[in-house]
């Protein structure tokens, strides 16, 4: 560019510049502390509007009262003092969205916190949006393959479904969600993992694991750490789903994991109590149900006319001592389309994932299951249920009638087969083959404690010499011929 053209360009810009008098609506801080502020003025302020405090700190107006406005502060508030000027921005709280966010770790305001380059997007989505209505939706009919045998077989999840993962602390709730994200490689799915109020060390470990398995290529991690203000924990899931909605608008399928919503409810309780909203049961505010229902309703499968795409939600709830009848667990159970209940007893008995077959359910996922899995896993849940009833008698093995003993033997082997180590999701064809083999008695001669080794050899054999058959199953093909082929292959393996 020559000097002349630079000068011309500059002149053009300056002459095009219009002098404008800026009118700003402002208020004054009356009270500040504990992450909230109360202001006078701002009489035209909207609900959920972003407010600008001195030093660039942003806030969100939550309480619009007769004389004052109450807001939460999103960031450091130690420099804000009484009498400071607060400006209206006229914008509802929104986050940057776009492809640039994939593979990044961001805070709930969309700012990169992974030490990488600044994220530059030109699109913003409001974090609060009304969920798609009835006419825009379609039934759930495509599966999300979690890669976890017990879930894919017994509690299948479909694209657009909301499936709750619930259980005590430290029994593998996050592990289930992370395995599901890892298994989405090549499944045409974008994942959003929202970490709410978690230890930063845990988040760092999760991000490292996702990177190790190549899952960050299609994943966004939204982090509101334990050290950050409650306001960020409160908005984090909404920010995550707003980022997901952008991809759904492109017609893509998205998986959203909210880890975990109990901590979001705590954060919201904290904010509400500080804003002096009346407390209700367990000191939660009256609208804590709406807090979760408006978030989870945004997970949906949209029909073609409305642009297609889907958001599958996997919210996580932590229970105290296995109590699912507490306020927040019952709320979220009633909102979601099913739950996977993890039990500490099972976990400590070495059954991992510690899925409780009796209390877990998937209300809409059955339609989304592929045909071979549906055929094979049909009897599995029933067998597992009967086994649970008879399990107590297992210790009197010698005095049992043959039918009961057979049922117990089968149950024990099924339990062994449904065990699965962390970070090792399995593809659906292998799952179908192993469940078919065990359910149809091909493993009856194997000792229960040798089942794991037997299973490994089984998969090795199938991957080596039956890949064509596995390929057919993976394509959801199933008829008598394929079943016969599978039966023959199982027989062949047992003979070896």
């Amino acid at each position, binding site marked *: 560019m020559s000097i002349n053209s630079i000068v011309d360009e*500059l002149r053009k*810009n*300056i002459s095009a*510049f219009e*002098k*404008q*008098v*800026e*009118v*700003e*609506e*402002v*208020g*004054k801080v009356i009270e500040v502390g504990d992450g909230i502020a109360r202001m*006078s*003025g*701002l*009489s035209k302020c909207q609900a959920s509007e972003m407010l600008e405090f001195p030093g660039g700190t942003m806030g969100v107006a939550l309480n619009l009262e007769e*004389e004052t406005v109450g807001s939460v502060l999103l960031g450091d508030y130690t420099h804000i003092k009484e009498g400071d*000027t607060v*400006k209206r921005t006229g914008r509802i709280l929104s986050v940057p969205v776009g492809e640039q966010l994939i593979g990044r770790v961001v805070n709930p305001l969309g700012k990169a916190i992974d030490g990488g380059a600044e994220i530059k997007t030109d699109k913003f989505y409001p974090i609060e949006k009304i969920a798609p209505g009835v006419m825009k939706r379609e039934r759930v009919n495509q599966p999300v393959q979690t890669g976890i045998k017990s879930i894919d077989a017994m509690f299948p999840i479909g694209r657009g479904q909301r499936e709750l993962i619930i259980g005590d602390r430290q029994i593998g709730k996050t592990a289930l969600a992370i395995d599901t994200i890892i298994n989405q490689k090549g499944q045409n799915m974008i994942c959003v993992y929202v970490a709410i109020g978690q230890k930063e060390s845990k988040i760092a470990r999760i991000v490292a694991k996702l990177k190790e398995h190549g899952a960050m290529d299609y994943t966004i991690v939204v982090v509101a750490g334990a050290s950050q203000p409650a306001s960020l924990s409160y908005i984090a899931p909404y920010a995550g789903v707003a980022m997901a909605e952008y991809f759904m608008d492109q017609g893509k399928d998205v998986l959203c994991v909210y880890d975990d919503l109990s901590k979001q409810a705590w954060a919201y309780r904290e904010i509400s109590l500080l804003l002096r909203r009346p407390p209700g049961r367990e000191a939660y505010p009256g609208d804590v149900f709406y807090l979760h229902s408006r978030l989870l309703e945004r997970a949906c499968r949209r029909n073609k006319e409305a642009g297609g795409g889907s958001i599958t939600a996997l919210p996580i709830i932590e229970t105290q001592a296995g109590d699912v009848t507490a306020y927040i667990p019952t709320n979220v159970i009633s909102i979601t389309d099913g739950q996977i209940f993890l039990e500490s007893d099972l976990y400590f008995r070495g059954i991992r994932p510690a899925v409780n077959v009796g209390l877990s359910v998937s209300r809409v996922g059955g339609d989304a299951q592929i045909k071979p899995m549906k055929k094979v896993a049909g009897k599995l849940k029933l067998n597992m249920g009967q086994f649970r009833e008879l399990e107590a008698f297992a210790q009197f093995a010698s005095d049992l009638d043959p039918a009961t003993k057979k049922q117990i033997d089968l149950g024990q082997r099924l339990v062994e087969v449904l065990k699965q180590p962390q970070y090792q999701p399995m593809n659906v064809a292998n799952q179908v083959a192993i469940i078919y083999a065990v359910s149809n008695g091909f493993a009856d001669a194997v000792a229960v404690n040798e089942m794991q080794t037997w299973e490994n050899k089984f998969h090795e054999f199938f991957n080596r010499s039956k890949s064509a058959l596995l390929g057919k199953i993976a394509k959801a093909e199933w008829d008598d011929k394929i079943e016969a082929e599978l039966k023959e292959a199982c027989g062949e393996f047992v003979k070896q």
Partner: protein
Amino acid sequence: MPKKKSTTTQYAKALYEVTKDLKGEHLHAVLAEFVKLLARAHKLKQAEQVIVEFEKFAKKQQGIVPLTVTTARTVPDKELIKIGNIFSHQAEVTPMIDEKIIGGFIAATDEVILDGSLRKQLIRLKQNLI
């Protein structure tokens, strides 16, 4: 249910309501009663705040707008009145000098800031060029 305590703003509003049409002796009597009321409610310590709130509320009711006009140099009163008239014919203008704004003026009420300063224009020009 415990009796709800009234705020200083509520006292100020009440005082305005009862005194707005009063004159002379009546006013004197009402004010004496009001002081007794404050004493009974143990609010005498907050009397100063009640007065501030009363002044603010009364001005608002009578359409008087307190206005701060910041300029880079001293401005003749005539100009200040002109600026005040933009907001209200009863604007109460407090002039302020701040050389950092370079030129133009900033007029601020409790709820609105009208920023016509040269500094703001230059910041906007900078943002446009970058």
